[in-house]
């Protein structure tokens, strides 16, 4: 009886067992499903993550190509910047953080910032090296390295940092680097930039970025969960430690002559604002691109405060502007040789024809002034003395169309193709333009154009190449800033032979005539640059210019200084030696006043020092110095 009743009681439960078993099977079925999902369907994804977990990729930066000038002087190179990387996971905070603060010599504020940054590193990044300090001093390096054994989470890594031995000299042409922004990376993912990389922002550094940067390498090592390096025992990991050596960037030899740049810098002493360009008339190689005031590109590359940036932005002399190719100016009387050639080539004016200058020129009701009363002038003396009246007369015959055509012939109004610093194309105003902007065309505009005071604008580089074309007998060159590109081992990879833009359709005898006039400017007693001449030196030819600035074009906030910015720009454009021209030069002194008085002496001094130093004795002593 007992037995039976017990069986019945147990039996009361029985039908539930099957449901329980079914429940267990279903739940385990779900687990099996999850296993299939994880291990079979998503296997690749998780494998990749597993490999990612244990590999740490250390980037090996490529050293950027070195820039040298025409004489082999280093213009831009790399030096090691000692950066401190910290792996937060490996630190023993209560011991290592105060020690680091002491070794680095941080003040209260810096120490706080350091601790805050360390604290803010998110957990998954804590096993990675985080760059905490850049470019620390030798003393700091030494202090940290003597404690290297204790400070296991602290590494001092030498990272190449761009450095420019010439500082602010040629800074516009050379350009500077700064860190890539998130947008840069997002915009050009294929270029492989990463946060912390620096890339060229202006000048040569920007234009030749892809040649200069080289290719980054990496070292892949195995680490455990705490970021400590592991030996791969028995080939445990599917991935092996690998190294891809970085490929250094290519070295450049520039056509720039830093010796000449120094000379120009000296010659500009006392003038706050201006620019100069020197080109080799035989090849179009650019020997100097000088823009003043300037800034130290080392400062830019190291990264600097917004206060300093604002200082540069607000400086009325516009140091950030490249005044050799980006800015364009009214050429003033430096345009006159082109006007003269237009008249000569098209046979419009006999150069011997004389015009009487009475100090002004009347056209309609308007009276246009001249610099002086020149009396009876022919074309030669008009160039020598820069007589406006003569050129007003000439302009009436030649016309605006022809003036512009010849300006274009000499490369004005079009980019030279130097490639750096968003070159300005300058401007040539035609009849249509005057009608659009001033309601109607008046003949006075043409007269102004002939003396470079119309709306013609030119860059210094354009004008230098134009003068170069006059000097070399009619070949307009494309400017060359780079002479050659070299591999890291010094082999020449690419050469840049002179490129001719155009052979001018101007007869040699006309060129000769104008050139003689320009020679007279410096060498005849009534020439506008005669006072700047250095007797016994290299013979120089050229043309002065005094370009009026548009009144109110640019104002200084301080009215007491406003007068300065209403002063004319002083020009000198020329070439030397006059008999066998080698270089053409253009100098502008912004708001300097008269070209003959202000710009010409600078140009003459530059040319004398530059070409004079190449006399046998001087070059021998230069050779001695360099050895």
């Amino acid at each position, binding site marked *: 009886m007992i037995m039976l009743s017990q069986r019945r009681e147990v039996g009361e439960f029985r039908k539930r067992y099957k449901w329980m078993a079914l429940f267990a099977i279903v739940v385990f079925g779900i687990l099996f499903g*999850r296993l299939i999902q994880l*291990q079979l369907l998503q*296997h690749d994804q998780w494998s990749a993550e597993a490999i990612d977990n244990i590999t740490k990729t250390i980037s090996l930066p490529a050293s950027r190509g070195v820039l040298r000038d025409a004489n082999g002087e280093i213009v831009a190179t790399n030096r090691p910047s000692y950066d401190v990387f910290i792996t937060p996971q490996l630190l023993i905070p209560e011991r290592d953080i105060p020690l680091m603060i002491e070794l680095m010599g941080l003040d209260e504020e810096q120490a706080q910032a350091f601790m805050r940054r360390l604290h803010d590193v998110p957990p998954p990044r804590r096993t990675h090296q985080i760059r905490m300090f850049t470019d620390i001093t030798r003393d700091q390096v030494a202090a940290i390295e003597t404690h290297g054994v204790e400070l296991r989470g602290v590494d001092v890594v030498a990272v190449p940092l761009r450095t420019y031995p010439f500082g602010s000299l040629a800074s516009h042409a050379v350009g500077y680097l700064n860190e890539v922004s998130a947008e840069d990376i997002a915009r050009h993912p294929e270029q492989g930039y990463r946060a912390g990389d620096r890339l060229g922002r202006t000048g040569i550094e920007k234009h030749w970025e892809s040649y200069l940067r080289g290719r980054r390498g990496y070292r892949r090592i195995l680490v455990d969960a705490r970021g400590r390096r592991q030996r791969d025992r028995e080939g445990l990991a599917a991935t092996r430690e690998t190294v891809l050596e970085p490929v250094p960037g290519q070295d450049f030899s520039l056509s720039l002559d830093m010796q000449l740049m120094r000379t120009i810098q000296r010659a500009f002493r006392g003038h706050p604002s201006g620019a100069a360009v020197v080109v080799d008339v035989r090849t179009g190689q650019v020997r100097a691109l000088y823009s003043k005031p300037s800034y130290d590109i080392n400062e830019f590359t190291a990264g600097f405060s917004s206060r300093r940036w604002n200082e540069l932005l607000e400086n009325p002399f516009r140091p950030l502007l490249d005044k050799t190719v980006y800015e364009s100016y009214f050429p003033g009387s430096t345009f006159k040789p082109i006007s003269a050639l237009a008249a000569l080539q098209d046979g419009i004016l006999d150069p011997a024809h004389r015009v009487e200058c009475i100090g002004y020129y009347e056209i309609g009701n308007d009276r246009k002034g001249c610099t002086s009363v020149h009396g009876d002038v022919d074309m030669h003396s008009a160039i020598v003395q820069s007589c406006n009246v003569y050129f007003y007369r000439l302009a009436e015959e030649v016309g605006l169309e022809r003036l512009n055509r010849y300006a274009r012939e000499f490369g004005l109004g079009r980019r030279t193709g130097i490639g750096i610093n968003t070159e300005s194309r300058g401007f040539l105003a035609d009849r249509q333009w005057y009608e659009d902007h001033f309601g109607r065309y008046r003949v006075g505009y043409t007269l102004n154009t002939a003396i470079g005071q119309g709306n013609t604008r030119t860059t210094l580089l354009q004008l230098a190449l134009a003068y170069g074309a006059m000097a070399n007998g009619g070949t307009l060159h494309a400017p060359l800033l780079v002479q050659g590109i070299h591999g890291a081992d010094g082999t020449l990879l690419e050469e840049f032979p002179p490129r001719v833009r155009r052979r001018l359709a101007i007869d040699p005898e006309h060129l000769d005539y104008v050139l003689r006039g320009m020679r007279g400017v410096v060498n005849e007693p009534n020439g506008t640059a005669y006072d700047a001449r250095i007797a016994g030196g290299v013979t120089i030819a050229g043309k002065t210019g005094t370009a009026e600035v548009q009144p109110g074009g640019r104002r200084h906030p301080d009215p007491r200084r406003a007068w300065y910015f209403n002063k004319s720009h002083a020009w000198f454009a020329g070439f030397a030696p006059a008999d066998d021209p080698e270089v053409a030069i253009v100098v502008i002194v912004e708001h300097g006043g008269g070209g003959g008085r202000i710009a010409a002496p600078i140009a003459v001094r530059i040319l004398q020092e530059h070409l004079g130093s190449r006399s046998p004795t001087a070059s021998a002593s230069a050779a001695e110095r360099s050895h």
Partner: protein
Amino acid sequence: MALVRTLRDQFDWTLFVATCAIAVLGIVNLYSATSAAGVQSDLHIQQIYWLTLGTGVAVLIVSIDYHHFERNAWVAYGAGLVLLVLVFLLGRSVRGSMRWIPIGGFSLQPSELMKVFLIIALAKYLHNDPKTDGRTLKDLVIPGLILAVPMVLILKQPDLGTAVICALIFGTVMVLTHLKIRSLVTLAIFFGVSAPLSWSYLLEDYQKGRFTAIWARWSGEEIDILDAGWHTQQSLVAIGSGGLTGKGFMRGTQNQFRFLPDQQSDFPFSVWSEEHGFLGAFVLLGLYLFVVIWGLKIASQARDRFGAVVSVGVSAMIFWHAVINLGMVMGMLPVVGLTLPLFSYGGSSVLTVMMGLGLLMNVSMRRFSF
């Protein structure tokens, strides 16, 4: 002689082999799990000691007819409660919770043992209270108290995982009984109300964080792998990267390079799956499912209600431990520190499971003797 023959004939070899298989795989796995890069450990040896000790206890349990346990069920239950109280007097705090009583060089975790005592106590109560018609809520008061007293003590430690297991064992056992529909509905309403309340008032922030982390994973949100999700993420990487055949014994990178937290106690399955792949994981899961179903089969054949409830209770204990642990390491359930029976390292855990298996074997062997 007769006893030996009885043992040989009636011994549940299937249960024995299945559990031995799990234990042996567990030791092998522990060897790998504790030999992670540069760390030498003898945890697998200790686990063998514990298993040996557990086997001794199980043999002792098997050799005594379970009627004796039924008779002394309240004593065992009381002893368990005393141990739980002693935790607060003698215990030491580890990582913010009081779970262990130090005994010599070892430490005992009474909450583990309590699960078995709870099963015995519930079995005793249901054995003596054979109802044929449906139970009302009033009939649940006493079994409810049997659960509640130890559970409160365990929650106090706090040990949420074990408390949850106790509740699940209780729930599973009570499924055996016949509850009236009205009572069921009332219960459902009660839990519906108390769940949000306990979320707000009982759970600590870190515990909530684990739930929300899992919720985020389920709902496919951007997972915050920084805190709560980190361990789960690394476990998933280990399991998923194991693939079909695994990376090989001692060759799991997640394990060897120590990306798995507590790989010997909480995440041994991740190590196993990483090194032995889907095939290995399939075998292990199959073994657990088999043991659970085998336990239910034993229950269905038990000669009395006590035996049936004990068998269901032990099966439920193994089932819920396995499911919660596996669900946790596979990122389906929140991270709670629950062991995988016999597979995880842990003295108290091994002893508890071995006691449970001893009881199961006992019921299985005595199903024919009246």
